[in-house]
């Protein structure tokens, strides 16, 4: 299997642990990944007003870049990139007039976009194309005894036309954790917003959200929390500092990308997991479980 891949801004710096662990895992699964040439920022958020077409240019351009590689499927890792590009794609597919205007605005592009690229998230590919059964067979170090609460947040599951899983009760990451030999932990805050970009001007709100989400995961017995979005990761990991200040009884819990769990079980090099990028060091937990 060969996949075109869109990394997005944060996977090249603060979320390098996400990118490297995902790419190593895909290699172990025998999937060839090609990063698209000349990709640009997706815009991070979908433009929600009806008249705002100009902001759809950034995501659509990445779909043109995909076609330039003779590919019609684009894989993303970041949940926000996935949401923004897929929603822009769905928007133009449903509205020829908008698509014509957007193509006109990009008159210098050699290829006209016609809505024929499919936007996929890695979790979707793992579930439908690679299959969890195949993942299970490739596991070298099962995540035995590791209790993982999967936090889905917003952008992976909502709105309805975007999500590839249940809106209120997604389980795709839990299925992955099971396939990797870990213990998935269900908890009621798995789709509650972490506060997203409010982390810039209102870290106090993020502290409230992080406190609620992580305390719930802990109460349900989780050793660590898995995420699929670099912004959720930042809010749940680095903002534990502010959370602890605001709520002294709060106890830290490590946050891991689902791809890092995969990389661990598929026996990737520790270098690909880049634990130095974590505010809460997951290594003591992983050592205790005999995984590193």
């Amino acid at each position: 299997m060969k996949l075109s891949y869109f990394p997005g801004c944060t996977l090249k710096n603060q979320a390098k642990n996400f990118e490297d662990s995902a790419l190593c895992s895909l290699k172990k699964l025998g999937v060839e990944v090609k990063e698209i040439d000349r990709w640009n920022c997706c815009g991070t958020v979908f433009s929600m007003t009806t008249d705002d077409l100009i902001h759809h240019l950034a995501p659509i351009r990445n779909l043109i870049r995909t076609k330039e590689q003779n590919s019609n499927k684009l894989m993303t890792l970041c949940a926000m990139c996935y949401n923004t590009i897929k929603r822009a794609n769905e928007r133009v597919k449903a509205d020829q007039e908008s698509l014509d205007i957007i193509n006109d605005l990009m008159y210098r592009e050699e290829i006209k976009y016609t809505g024929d690229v499919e936007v996929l998230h890695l979790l979707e590919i793992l579930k439908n194309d690679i299959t969890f059964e195949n993942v299970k067979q490739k596991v070298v170090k099962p995540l035995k005894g590791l209790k993982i609460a999967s936090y889905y947040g917003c952008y992976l599951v909502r709105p309805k036309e975007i999500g590839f899983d249940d809106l209120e009760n997604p389980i795709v990451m839990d299925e992955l954790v099971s396939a990797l030999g870990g213990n998935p932990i269900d908890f009621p805050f798995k789709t509650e917003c972490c506060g997203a970009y409010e982390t810039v001007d209102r870290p106090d709100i993020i502290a409230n959200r992080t406190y609620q989400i992580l305390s719930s995961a802990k109460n349900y017995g989780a050793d660590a929390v898995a995420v699929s979005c670099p912004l959720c990761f930042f809010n749940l990991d680095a903002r534990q500092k502010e959370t602890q200040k605001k709520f002294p009884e709060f106890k830290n819990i490590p946050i891991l990308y689902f791809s890092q769990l995969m990389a661990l079980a598929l026996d990737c090099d520790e270098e690909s997991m880049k634990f130095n990028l974590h505010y809460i060091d997951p290594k003591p937990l992983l050592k205790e479980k005999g995984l590193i």
Partner: protein
Amino acid sequence: MRTIISRQKIRSPFVAKVEELSGQNLLACYQCGKCSAGCPNVDQMDIPPNQIIRFAQLGMEEELKNSKSIWICASCMTCNVRCPKGINIAEVIESIRQIVLRKRNDHVEVKKLSDSEKQNVPPIALISCFRKFTS
């Protein structure tokens, strides 16, 4: 607080603009309150989501443009997926934000952010913050 409701306000260009930008029919709302019940940030809001819809129906432009709520909503879409009438409440809130921002009234000023606010914050947070809170 004294509130005056009038036919002029209800039929004001503001109400039409909100409906146009959001693509929503405001009068479809029957005030069940499910949006506010499920909103994870409602405790920080001065006007909860169901009341935002009511205020918008009544053309209460100043109250909405000056509300804290429009800058608290993070477009997590929980309200949208739970609305029994299929109204996209998040889009209505976005349209009010846009009406304010399009007059060059930025909510976040980049140069006023302190070093500690910018420190270590990943690009995904900064870009989405500026996309949502600046013109």
